[in-house]
């Protein structure tokens, strides 16, 4: 028997309103299945279940507002291996290290994932007033641990090169590990298994879209708090680079003549794909600043800014974006934008990104210099594709786009940001590889 609880869908979420049940008593449920729609103050979110079993009882009725952690439903037979129904169902795997299973009570899969990303052992994390581990507890633990460890950014930590690589790819802070090698040197065996599983992909919900209640004011306040914190805490530096995108546009045109209408491409998919690939090569900008040190992310999880026509923005995430081609990103981007706009994002789509991309090109602006979303360390901005006179001595007019990066100067220096922009440019010149 397991409990399905009100998840924490953001660091500032204290309670949520159950809008709708998509399952009823007696229904079998599977990990990754969307079972309920929850209204946070920002949006209606489709929430996945992280257990296998049969719904025994719904304990909260639609319209009820309950605190994070409250039991919403009980699931019978949870933990038993129930095979997923339907061949199309992808069994989602949540990265849960052995030490993170019961008896530690963790509410949200997002908290678990964040703990893995930060290299925090949930068994050692203090809990909130309700005896449950919340995201703030994880962040607090990461900060606590990073602080007394001496040199920031792992300066004098003694570790083997392989251990360093493993730690970086697993998002583990070397300063928090005691080495078992000669003289206390950290060796590969000291680094635990890292997170490698992709985020669960939820099956589409059959429920009709429902409008969420008014979110304008609370969303404005959430944006205000976050952006003010960013400008207060993060010393931003900004770089801009105008890039020739004629090869990319040619590729888009050529593929669009071949592809069916429903698979039509837009240049934005290539810009996003190039950014994701470039970040693999420049990991210094892909991660979070926690407790006075940079924590690289094992994967490129890109937050994509979606402007809502009613005002405000929402930033859903494309997990492991570097693993997707531009053509694979296209339906993901379309689905994400559509669900963000009709207020039906899924819980996993609000997982914490490792970097954010904002594209205001369709609004016709030349460039956008972004504000970093804490605790991320960079935001990449795209302006409009425009025809400009070539600047490199060749005659003619060519399509260009101005790409920017705003980055946290605590975590990186300008040369790193420049490296990212140069990578993006090179990739846009070879769009067949994206």
């Amino acid at each position, binding site marked *: 028997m397991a409990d399905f609880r009100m998840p924490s869908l953001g660091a500032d979420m204290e309670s949520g309103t159950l809008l709708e049940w998509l399952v009823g008593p007696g229904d079998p449920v599977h990990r990754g299945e969307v079972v309920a729609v929850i209204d946070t103050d920002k949006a209606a979110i489709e929430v996945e279940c992280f257990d296998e079993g049969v719904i025994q009882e719904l304990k909260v009725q639609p319209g009820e507002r309950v605190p994070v952690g409250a039991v919403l439903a009980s699931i019978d037979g949870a933990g038993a291996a129930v095979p997923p129904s339907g061949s199309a169902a992808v069994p989602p795997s949540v990265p849960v290290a052995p030490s993170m299973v019961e008896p530690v009570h963790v509410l949200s899969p997002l908290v678990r994932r964040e703990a893995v990303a930060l290299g925090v052992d949930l068994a050692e994390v203090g809990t909130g007033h309700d005896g449950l581990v919340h995201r703030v507890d994880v962040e607090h633990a990461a900060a606590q641990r990073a602080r007394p460890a001496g040199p920031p950014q792992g300066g004098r930590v003694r570790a083997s090169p392989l251990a360093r690589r493993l730690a970086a790819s697993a998002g583990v802070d070397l300063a928090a590990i005691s080495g078992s090698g000669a003289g206390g040197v950290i060796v590969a065996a000291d680094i635990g298994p890292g997170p490698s599983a992709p985020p669960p992909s939820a099956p589409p919900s059959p429920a009709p*879209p429902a409008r969420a209640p008014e979110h304008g004011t609370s969303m404005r306040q959430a944006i205000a708090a976050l952006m003010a914190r960013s400008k207060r805490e993060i010393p931003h530096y900004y770089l801009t680079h105008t890039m020739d995108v004629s090869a990319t546009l040619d590729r888009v*045109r050529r593929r*669009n*003549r071949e592809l069916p*209408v*429903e698979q*039509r491409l*837009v*240049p*934005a998919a290539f810009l996003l794909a190039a950014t994701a690939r470039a970040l693999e090569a420049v990991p210094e900008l892909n991660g979070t600043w926690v407790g006075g040190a940079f924590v690289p992310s094992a994967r490129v999880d890109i937050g994509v800014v979606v*402007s809502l*026509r*009613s005002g405000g923005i929402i930033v859903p995430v494309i997990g492991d974006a570097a693993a997707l081609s531009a053509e694979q990103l296209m339906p993901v*981007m*379309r689905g994400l*934008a*559509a669900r963000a*706009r*009709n207020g039906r994002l899924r819980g996993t789509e609000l997982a914490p990104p490792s970097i954010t991309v904002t594209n205001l*090109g*369709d*609004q016709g602006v030349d460039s956008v210099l972004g504000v970093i979303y804490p605790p991320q360390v960079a935001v990449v901005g795209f302006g409009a594709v425009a025809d400009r006179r070539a600047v490199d001595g060749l005659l003619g007019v060519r399509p260009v786009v101005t790409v920017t990066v705003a980055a946290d100067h605590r975590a990186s220096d300008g040369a790193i940001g420049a490296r990212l922009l140069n990578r993006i440019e090179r990739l846009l010149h070879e769009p067949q590889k994206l």
Partner: protein
Amino acid sequence: MTPEQAQQVVEQAIVSAVPDADVGTLGPDDDLRETLELDSLDFVAVVESLSVRAAFRIDEEDYRELRTLARAAQFVAAHAPA
């Protein structure tokens, strides 16, 4: 297809692709993308929806024919199979 029918098809395509866009405020000669604040993802959704409803393939080269409601209706009326 008459121009009136074609205009209805265009309006329906927009509403189905971008449910939160306010088609009611759209004048026949207003720029679609600007007035409805359609980004490129919205716009390809409109093109896909219109291609299905009007039952002919709309190519990238045809996008300029879709700038306004009036122009799009004319384009659809001329190209949709009878």
